[in-house]
C-alpha cells in the first residue's frame, strides 16, 4: 500500500515537472515561430501551433530594412558586453585579491566602503549617474555606456570571498621563488582561479547584454542604441512589422543562449557562491 503511494507520488511529480518544463519552453517556441512566420500567419485569427510556411528570408529582410538600425545595435551590444566583462573581471579581481590577500591597516574600512554601495540599488542611482555622465559629455557614447558600469561591487565581493579561501602555500612558494605581488598574481593566482573568473564573467556578460535602463537613458542617439533599446523602441512604436520584431528578438538571444549553454555550469557555481547566506 505504502509502496504504491510512493510510486504514485513519483509519477505525479514527473507529470508536474514535464508540464512545467513545457510551459517554460513555450515562450522560446513562440519567439521562433513568430520570427519565422509571415505577418499574416502571426496575426491570423485562426491561431495554429505551427506556421503554414517557414520564412527564413525574414532574417535577411531584417538586416536589409533601412529603417531598423539592427546590425548597428547588435554591434554596440557586443562591444559593450565584451568590454564590460573584460573590464569588470580585471578591476574587480585585482581589488578582490588586494582586499583578501594583502595585509593593510585600512583594508577593512575600504572593504566596507565598497560593500556599502551594494545597499544603494543600482537602479535608483540612474538619475544621479545620468547627471554625472551628461556633465562629462558622455551621453550617447560607448564610453558613457561602458565606463560607469565597470565598477561592480558585487563582482569585487565575489572575488574577495573566493581569494580568502585560497591556499596560502601557492603564494608562499611564489614568494620563495622571488616573485612579487604583481607577478604572483598573474602567474600563480589567476591560472588557479579560472572557475571564479568564468562564473563572474558569464554573469557580468549576461547582465551587460540584457541591461536596459542604463542604455535607454544614455543611448539617446540611434547610433548608440543597444539591441535591447532597439527592440524596445520597435515594440512601443506605432507601426510594427511583427515578423521582423520577433526574428530580431530571437537573434538578440542567440549569442546569449550560446554563452549560457557553454557556461551554464559556471553560472550555477557562480550563483551558488555569490555570497548570499
Amino acid at each position: 500500500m505504502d509502496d504504491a503511494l510512493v510510486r504514485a507520488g513519483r509519477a505525479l511529480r514527473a507529470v508536474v515537472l514535464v508540464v512545467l518544463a513545457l510551459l517554460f519552453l513555450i515562450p522560446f517556441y513562440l519567439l521562433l515561430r513568430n520570427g519565422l512566420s509571415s505577418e499574416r500567419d502571426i496575426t491570423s485569427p485562426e491561431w495554429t501551433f505551427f506556421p503554414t510556411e517557414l520564412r527564413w528570408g525574414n532574417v535577411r529582410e531584417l538586416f536589409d530594412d533601412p529603417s531598423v538600425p539592427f546590425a548597428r545595435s547588435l554591434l554596440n551590444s557586443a562591444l559593450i558586453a565584451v568590454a564590460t566583462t573584460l573590464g569588470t573581471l580585471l578591476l574587480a579581481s585585482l581589488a578582490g585579491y588586494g582586499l583578501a590577500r594583502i595585509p593593510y591597516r585600512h583594508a577593512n574600512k575600504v572593504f566596507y566602503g565598497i560593500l556599502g554601495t551594494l545597499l544603494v540599488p543600482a537602479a535608483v542611482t540612474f538619475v544621479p549617474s545620468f547627471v554625472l555622465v551628461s556633465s562629462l559629455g558622455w551621453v550617447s557614447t560607448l564610453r558613457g555606456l561602458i565606463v560607469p558600469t565597470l565598477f561592480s561591487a558585487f563582482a569585487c565581493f565575489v572575488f574577495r570571498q573566493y581569494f580568502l579561501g585560497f591556499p596560502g602555500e601557492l603564494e608562499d612558494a611564489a614568494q620563495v621563488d622571488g616573485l612579487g605581488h604583481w607577478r604572483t598574481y598573474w602567474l600563480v593566482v589567476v591560472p588557479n582561479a579560472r572557475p571564479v573568473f568564468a562564473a563572474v564573467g558569464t554573469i557580468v556578460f549576461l547582465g551587460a547584454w540584457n541591461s536596459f535602463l542604463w542604455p535607454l537613458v544614455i543611448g539617446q542617439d540611434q547610433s548608440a542604441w543597444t539591441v535591447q533599446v532597439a527592440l524596445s523602441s520597435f515594440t512601443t512604436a506605432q507601426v510594427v512589422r511583427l515578423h521582423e520584431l520577433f526574428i530580431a528578438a530571437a537573434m538578440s538571444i542567440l549569442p546569449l543562449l550560446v554563452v549560457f549553454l557553454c557556461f551554464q555550469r559556471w553560472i550555477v557555481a557562480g550563483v551558488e557562491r555569490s555570497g548570499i547566506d
Partner: protein
Amino acid sequence: MRRRRAFWFWVFVGPFAAGLALFTYVPLLWSVGLSFFDAHNTVTPTDFVGLDNYTAMLKDSAFTGSLRTFLVFTAFIVPVTFALSLALALMVNRVRRAQAFFRSVFFLPAACSYVVAALIWKMSIFNGVRFGLANTLLGWFGTDPVAWLSTTRPPWYWLVIVTVRLWLQAGFYMILFLAGLQRIDPVLYEAAAVDGARPGWTVLRHITLPQLRATSVAVLLLLVINAFQAFDEFYNLLSDARGYPPYARPPLVYLYYTALGQGQNLGLGSAGAVILALIIAIVTVGQARWLRLGRSEEE
C-alpha cells in the same frame, strides 16, 4: 615593509576603489545637492529651493501612487516566486533521471532579457486581440477576448506583469534553493526515518524547511530588492507610441519620466531618487534585522 604593503594594496585596489567612488559616491552626493535646486534641463542650476522638491514629490499623488503600485506588485511577486522556485527546487532535487535537463529548462529564461520576454508576452501571449495565445485558448472555451494590458478593472495587467517576471527569475531562485538543499546533512533525514517520521510533508516541515532558513532569508531579501527595481517589464509592457498609461507605474518608471521625460526636471528627479533610496535602505535593513531576530530566537 608596512609601506610597501600599503603601496601594493593600493596598486591592486586603487583603480577599482577610485572608479567606484567616482561613479557611485560622486553621483549620489551630486544628486543630493541637486535635489535642493530648481534644475530644469540643467546639471548646474543656480536657483536654491530648499526642501521644495521633496515636499512637491511627497505631495505628488502620482509619486505616492507609484509607491502603492510597488506594494501591490511586491505583494504578488514575492510570495509567488518564492513558492514556485522552492517547489521547483524540491521536485528537481528528488528527480533521479534527467535532473540536469529540468534544471537547465527552468534556468534557461534567466538568459532572456526583460525586453524580449515583454515582447513575447505583449505581442504573442497576452495580445488583446484574438490572435494572442491566451485569447485563442479562451476562445476555445467560448470566452470573449480580454484586453489584457489595457483593462484596468478588473486589472488583468497584473497577471501579465507577474507571469513575465516569474518566468524570468523563478529558475534563478530555484538554483539558490537547490544549493541550499544540497547542503543539508543526509544524517538528519536518516534520523527522522529512524524516529518514524513519514517522508513527505512531515519531513519537509520539520527538517527541510528549517534547514533552508538561511537560503530563504536571502531569497526573500533579493526578491524584495529586485521588486523595488522593477522597470524593464513595466516600461516595455505598458508603454506604447502614445506614452505610458496613468495606472501601474512603479517608482522607477515614474522617476524616469520625471527626470528624463519632456521637462527633464533633474532636481525633482533627484529628490525622488533620494526618497526612494532611503525607503529601500530602511526596508532592507528592517527586513534583514527582522528575519535575523527570528533566527536567533529559534536557536
